[in-house]
Every structure is written in structure tokens, then in C-alpha cells.
């Protein structure tokens, strides 16, 4: 596929990896904020290839990992209602709530449907005027324009049976929170290319200045990520700390203004809790009062609920880079991909699950059966 396959070229990637290793005079700790980048890093084994030169901390950039337990529980309550068709991106179906997940709600009779686009959820609402259709509007700045448009269209077309359960978060406050943490280990960031495709990168300039940290807007293919790492390492090696753009083909300084405008029309900033991390001021989005009719929490009177995570789960420290998953006391014992205590053990790219598979593989590779002949 054009603009995808060529950025996976191993013949270019290998020398890039060597170059990063030679440029780094000491090991540097970088964080990729976005789950999509984590996906590429884990799937291509880039961590392993750069061992000794760069340690990547997989940051809090995946709605699966950071959507707060309260919102998951609200989703489960709504999905269980007999009058509701609950629509969601596939990602959210296996995220554990307090006592089950959306797949289990479906097994108990809930009408839960996976959609590709929020406009598909709106279409389901138009085709089922006798049912309440709720869409689980999760995600970061990349997804916000799509979810904002679905709400906007619902109002424009007059679709009274469509509502959204909003759990939107934004990246810059999270970067700020991580940098302000007293035991922060992150020395440079790969900023999420698609978040910046929408938002541009002006918000990151004061962050790079204030925290004296390099931030490189980076794409998602292996060559993008390697180039982004190289740019960050070069800044670190030369004592610079600015915002640079690796993902030039898709990101402009101002982002995509029409998308930003629609997001601002529909949503407003609010303090938001991040699963595993806690509340980060002004880090979330909620519907503006003008769109209250499309707010599932108001329509179904969900109000505030208070829940607590497993005290054994240290996801927050992992997401902010303070704790490596294998050092968590529950890792691999009481917390495994089959029995996750927290969200990071759920998807195969969750930081904990990724470490778990690697540890299992290394253990198995070292313990070759005695006398086995190949």
C-alpha cells in the first residue's frame, strides 16, 4: 500500500538502527505516548533491536489502558439495559470493568455491536428509532473530531435516540504530568503523529521549553519510529530540547483546523481521571451544554459512581515509566493475560502483556530440553 509499505523497508531500517546505536553515547529513555506506536515497536521487536541504546517506555496512549474504570462500569450498565443498543470500537470490548467486560454483558443478553466509525453508530440509531443507541466515545484528539461530528450530525438530522458516553482525553496534560512527577525517568518523547495531524504541534512547544525535553512528532511505521528515535537521540546528545516533526507528510504545524474547530464546538475541557494514573487537570473532554441532549450520562441518569481498582495493580507506575512491568509484585503470578488485574495486561500490546510474552519466550528459549537434537 502506498505511503505504508515503503516505510517498512528492512534494507533502510537496519542501517537506521545501527545509526541510532552509534549516535547514542549512553542509553537514553524515551517514551512513545501512542498505543499505535507501541503496536509497531512491539510487533517489529524494535525494543530488542535497540537494547542498550534506547529504552522505550510505553506511555499512556491507548484508550484501552487509560479509560477510567468508572466510565467502563457506566458502559457496562448501559449495555445491559434491554432498551439499549450499545455501540463501541472493538478495542473496548475486552477491557475489564469492576465485575465483567462488554463481551460478558453481550453474553448475558446485552445488545453490544462493534462499529468501525461513530457515523455507523449514528446510522444504527436512524435505522432503529424504537431503540436507544449509545456510542462509547473514547479516544484521544485523533478520534475526537469523528465523535464530535457524530453528535453534530445527530443534532442536525434530529436523531433523538442517539447518545454518546464520552471518555475523551488529551495528550499534552499527560506529558506535563509525567514530566512533573518527582521520579520521572523519561528523557524524550515521540509525540503521536495522528494526534498532531489533527491538533498540530504548537501545544508541545511550551512543554519542550518548560521541561527541557525533546519532543518529536512521529509517524507509525517502523522507519517513521526509527527516524523519530534518531531525531530525539540527536537532540539529547547535543543538549537540545525542541519540538521537531518527523511525520512531515501528514502533519502540519497548525494541524487540520476544520477538525479542531468542530471539536471545540462540541466539546469542552474538563478534569479527567486516567485509569491507573489518577486525575489530570483539564485533560479530558466532555460535551458542551448545548449538546446535553446527546449525553448518555445525563439521559440515563448515571451520575457519579465511585469504584476502586485492584490495589495489587501498579498500572499507573508502569504507564508513567516509574516501574518496569517485571518488577510489579503481581507480574506473571497473580496477573497474566488470562487473568489480568489491570488493563495493561489485556491487549497484547499493553506494556505488561508485551513484557510477559517476552519473558515467557526468553525463559523457554534458555531452558532447552536436555538431549534434544535438531
Amino acid at each position, binding site marked *: *500500500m*502506498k*505511503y*505504508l509499505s*515503503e*516505510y517498512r523497508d528492512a*534494507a*533502510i531500517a*537496519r*542501517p*537506521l538502527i*545501527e*545509526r541510532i546505536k*552509534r549516535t547514542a553515547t549512553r542509553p537514553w529513555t524515551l517514551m512513545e505516548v*501512542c*498505543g*499505535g506506536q507501541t503496536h509497531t515497536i512491539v510487533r517489529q521487536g524494535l525494543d530488542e533491536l535497540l537494547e542498550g541504546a534506547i529504552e522505550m517506555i510505553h506511555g499512556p*496512549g*491507548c*484508550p484501552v489502558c487509560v479509560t477510567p474504570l468508572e466510565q467502563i462500569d457506566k458502559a457496562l450498565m448501559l449495555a445491559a439495559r434491554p432498551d439499549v443498543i450499545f455501540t463501541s*470500537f472493538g478495542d473496548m470490548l475486552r477491557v475489564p470493568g469492576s465485575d465483567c467486560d462488554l463481551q460478558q454483558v453481550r453474553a448475558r443478553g446485552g445488545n453490544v455491536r462493534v462499529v*468501525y*466509525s*461513530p*457515523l*455507523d453508530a449514528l446510522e444504527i440509531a436512524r435505522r432503529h428509532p424504537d431503540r436507544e443507541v449509545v456510542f462509547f466515545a473514547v*479516544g*484521544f484528539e*485523533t*478520534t475526537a*473530531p*469523528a465523535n464530535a*461530528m457524530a453528535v453534530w*450530525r445527530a443534532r*442536525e*438530522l434530529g436523531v433523538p435516540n442517539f447518545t454518546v458516553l464520552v471518555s475523551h482525553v488529551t495528550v499534552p496534560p499527560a506529558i506535563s504530568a509525567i514530566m512533573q512527577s518527582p521520579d520521572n525517568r523519561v528523557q524524550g518523547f515521540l509525540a*503521536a*503523529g*495522528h*494526534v498532531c*495531524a*489533527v491538533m498540530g504541534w504548537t501545544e508541545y512547544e511550551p512543554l519542550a521549553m518548560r521541561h527541557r525535553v525533546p519532543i518529536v512528532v512521529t509517524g*507509525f511505521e517502523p*522507519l517513521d519510529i526509527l*527516524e523519530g528515535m534518531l531525531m530525539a537521540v*540527536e537532540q539529547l546528545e547535543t543538549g537540545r530540547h525542541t519540538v521537531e516533526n518527523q511525520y*512531515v*507528510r*501528514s*502533519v*502540519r504545524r497548525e*494541524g*487540520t483546523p*476544520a*477538525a479542531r474547530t*468542530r471539536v471545540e464546538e462540541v466539546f469542552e475541557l474538563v478534569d479527567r481521571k486516567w485509569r491507573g494514573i489518577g486525575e489530570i487537570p483539564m485533560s479530558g473532554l466532555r460535551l458542551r451544554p448545548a449538546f446535553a441532549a446527546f449525553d448518555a450520562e445525563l439521559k440515563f441518569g448515571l451520575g457519579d459512581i465511585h469504584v476502586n481498582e485492584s490495589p495489587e495493580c501498579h498500572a499507573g507506575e508502569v504507564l508513567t515509566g516509574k516501574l518496569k512491568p517485571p518488577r510489579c509484585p503481581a507480574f506473571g503470578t497473580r496477573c497474566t493475560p488470562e487473568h489480568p488485574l489491570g488493563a495493561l495486561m489485556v491487549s497484547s500490546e499493553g506494556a505488561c502483556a508485551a513484557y510477559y510474552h517476552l519473558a515467557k519466550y526468553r525463559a523457554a528459549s534458555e531452558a532447552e530440553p536436555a538431549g534434544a537434537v535438531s
Partner: protein
Amino acid sequence: MCLGIPGKIVELRDDTGLAMGVVDFGGVRREVCLAYVQDEARLGDYVIVHVGFAISMVDEAEAHRTFEVLREMSQLDELGWLDEVAEAAEASRGSATTVTQTGSRIP
């Protein structure tokens, strides 16, 4: 957070005031909302699509340039490598040459 895939606009249309279109992803086609890029997007242009929405244009000239820079960098690097190996070999033969950083960086 953000699976965004580049695809080519192959159809443009208006759905009761909303700019929509069909985008081709290497042979797979899907209806996509083009409202956020409608001022720029033309048939045949490439856009990044996330959850059924075009969130930005792909700048083909920049894409080409990035790729060329990367490719040149890797080729230069391979040459740089050879230099280094040669220098190291020389050094090990007792010459006083110090091995220096190759520094074949593209600005």
C-alpha cells in the same frame, strides 16, 4: 490511540450537507467523511483516515522527500560503515590513526 491509514480518494459526494467520499486503501474501499479536508481534497488525493474520517491530507511531495532522505541516509551509512571498518582495521595494524565519528548526517 490512533490507527490512521493512508488511502486515495476515488469518489466525492455530498450527503445532505456532509462531504463524504469513497477512499481506496490498496484495493479495499470504504465510505469516508471528508468534511475536515474538503477545502483541499480532490479526486486522486491521498488522505489519512481514522475511524471513517479523513483527519489530514498526505503531502505527496513531502512523503517522497522523507523517503528519499531516509534512503540516502541508509546508503551513506553503509558507506560510513565501510570507512569505519577500514579505519579500525588500519588502527589495529599499529597505525596511529584514531577512529573518528563518521558523522554523515543529513541535515
